[in-house]
Each structure stands twice: as structure tokens, then as C-alpha cells.
């Protein structure tokens, strides 16, 4: 079981705003819907479902399975201003690799929230003994790439003209990996 006893956790941003971090619950559906509608198109390109459709958001929010998909929300007042999601496979050869996706509301960027969310996911990844965290980012999202690199992620590969946005335009995909402490233990002990 992934330990969630650190939540709710309150953090300060660079503008002194207080934000509460906690796992998403089914009652967050309305807030999540509003949050997703604020995001630029490029930030929504990775979703498997069309999150511009309310039923897709309902399905995501109302059936949480934290062992497979753990969305941590950043909430300012009663508004969702960011999400960090840790995706895990319960079985199989990638069960010790966690995939990270972080979304920040446009008006809450450059305040340190993205970095704080990376720190949260890194902490959770350590707690469930993952070997690697993996982040996939479209190359144009340079702020995200730099923030991930500053937090210990390393560029593993850049796939040229690899993924398409929702209008069909191709983009380079940057894959970044973060080795975790359990990997070091497995290699050296």
C-alpha cells in the first residue's frame, strides 16, 4: 500500500500563497473539470481520454485506484491549481517504474509549485520502492524539462516528431528518468 499519511500537506509558494496537497477523491470531479479547462492544448495532449468531455473526467475522478494511478492535487482555497500523478503497473516487468505527469495551472507557474509536486512524487516513489521514475514531456515544455532535470531526472532519449497533439501536429518527445535509492541498493548490495 502506498503510504498517504503525510496528507493533507500545506506548502507555501514563492508568492506566499498557501496550497494544500492531498490525493484526489471522487468529490473533486467539479474542481478537476474546471482545472482541466484552464490548461493549454499542449498540456492535455498526453491524455488517453478526451478530457474536454465531462464524462471522461467523471470516470477518472470517480473511480480512484491509488495503487495504479495516484493523483495528488494542489488546492488553493477551493480551487485546484495543479496535479501530480504517479502511474504504476501492479504487475509485470515495469512494476517498479513509476510514470510521472504534472500539470500546473497557467497562472500558478513559476512559483515553485511544479518543483514541489516533483518532490512529492519523488517522495512517494521512494516509499513504494520504485527503481525509476519516468517523465515524458513534449520538448516545447522547456520549463518542465529544466525543473525535472534540476530535481535529478536525466534525459534518456529524445524521440523526434514522435507524438502528435490533438490537432495532429507532431512534436519531439523527451523521456527523462530518475533513478531511485532502491535501485542503488539492488545494484550494490
Amino acid at each position, binding site marked *: 500500500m502506498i503510504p498517504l499519511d503525510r496528507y493533507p500537506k500545506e506548502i507555501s509558494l514563492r508568492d506566499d500563497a498557501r496550497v494544500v496537497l492531498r490525493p484526489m477523491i471522487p468529490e473533486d470531479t467539479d474542481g478537476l473539470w474546471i482545472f482541466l479547462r484552464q490548461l493549454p492544448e499542449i498540456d492535455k495532449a498526453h491524455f488517453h481520454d478526451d478530457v474536454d468531455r465531462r464524462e471522461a473526467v467523471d470516470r477518472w475522478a470517480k473511480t480512484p485506484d491509488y495503487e495504479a494511478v495516484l493523483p495528488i492535487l494542489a488546492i488553493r482555497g477551493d480551487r485546484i491549481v495543479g496535479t501530480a500523478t504517479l502511474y504504476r503497473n501492479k504487475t509485470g516487468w515495469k512494476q517498479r517504474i513509476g510514470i510521472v505527469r504534472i500539470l500546473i495551472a497557467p497562472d500558478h507557474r513559476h512559483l515553485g509549485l511544479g518543483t514541489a509536486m516533483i518532490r512529492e512524487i519523488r517522495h512517494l516513489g521512494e516509499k513504494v520502492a520504485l527503481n525509476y521514475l519516468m517523465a515524458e514531456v513534449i520538448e516545447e515544455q522547456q520549463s518542465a524539462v529544466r*525543473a525535472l532535470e534540476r530535481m535529478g531526472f536525466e534525459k534518456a532519449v529524445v524521440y523526434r516528431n514522435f507524438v502528435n497533439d490533438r490537432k495532429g501536429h507532431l512534436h519531439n518527445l523527451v523521456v527523462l528518468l530518475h533513478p531511485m*535509492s532502491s535501485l542503488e541498493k539492488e545494484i550494490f548490495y
Partner: protein
Amino acid sequence: MNCSICGVDHFSAPGRGRATPAGERSCPYQGVPYTGLRAGHDQIYFGRWRRMDATSIDLQRAYHQLERLLNGIAVALETEDIPAARLDLGKAVEALHTAGPGEGGLEALRYLDHALSYAHRVIGDLLHEKGLPPHSPADFAGWYDAGEVPFREDW
């Protein structure tokens, strides 16, 4: 002269000032969590060893300052459950040892820089656990003889 509050040598007032109007020293780190670690980090961050005209003495000083900083971080981490920070501290120590205490040259500089970056990340982890934003040396640049502050974008 080292500040009695944070323990490092910084200006007594921002902007190369030597004293407050009342003639007393003031400390920009007073009251902030992890005062010693933040000040210790910035002393190295803005240190002479990064300048073009740095001498081997500047490098040796930076090495020993980093050694003290990492020891301080290790003490702070003893009571915290942050595995990622422990891993980064280990990497910082490794980079510091690779740089060596009396080594010059670009490689030593690079490893000292790596060690300092890891240290910065661990200080950020400690602050995050307390619900605080990461430490930004740029906020304290006016208190040091800092020529140019590298731009650090936050996300």
C-alpha cells in the same frame, strides 16, 4: 568577519553595505528555517572559487566549506524521513571526494559545482518537508560580493 547569526561572512547590509544605519550588522538569514545551511550554501555559491581569477587557495576553501555544509546537512537529515535527500547527499559527498581537497582544474571545479547542486537540492527537500518554498540564492545576492547571479527559472 563571520556573522554571529548564520556563521558565514556576508556584507552587513545588502548592496555591499558594511553596517546598518544604527551601525550594527544585520543578517538576511535571521529567522529563516535552516539558517546555517542556507547561509553555508550561499557562501559557497557566491564564493571566489567560481571566478576566472580563482586561486588554488580559493578552491581549497570552497572544498572545506562544502565539507562543513554536507556535514551540517547530514545532521539535519538524521531526524527526517526523506530517502531521496539521503541519496542526493551521498552523491554530493561522492562528487566532493572526486573533486579532492587540493585539486585544481576544470574537472575539480565541475565536481565541486555538482556537489553544491546536490546540496542545494537536499536543502530544498528539507524546506519542502516543512512546507516552505526552495531556497533561492538570488534572494540573498545583495549580501555577497556577487558579480553575476545565474538565472534560475522556477516551475
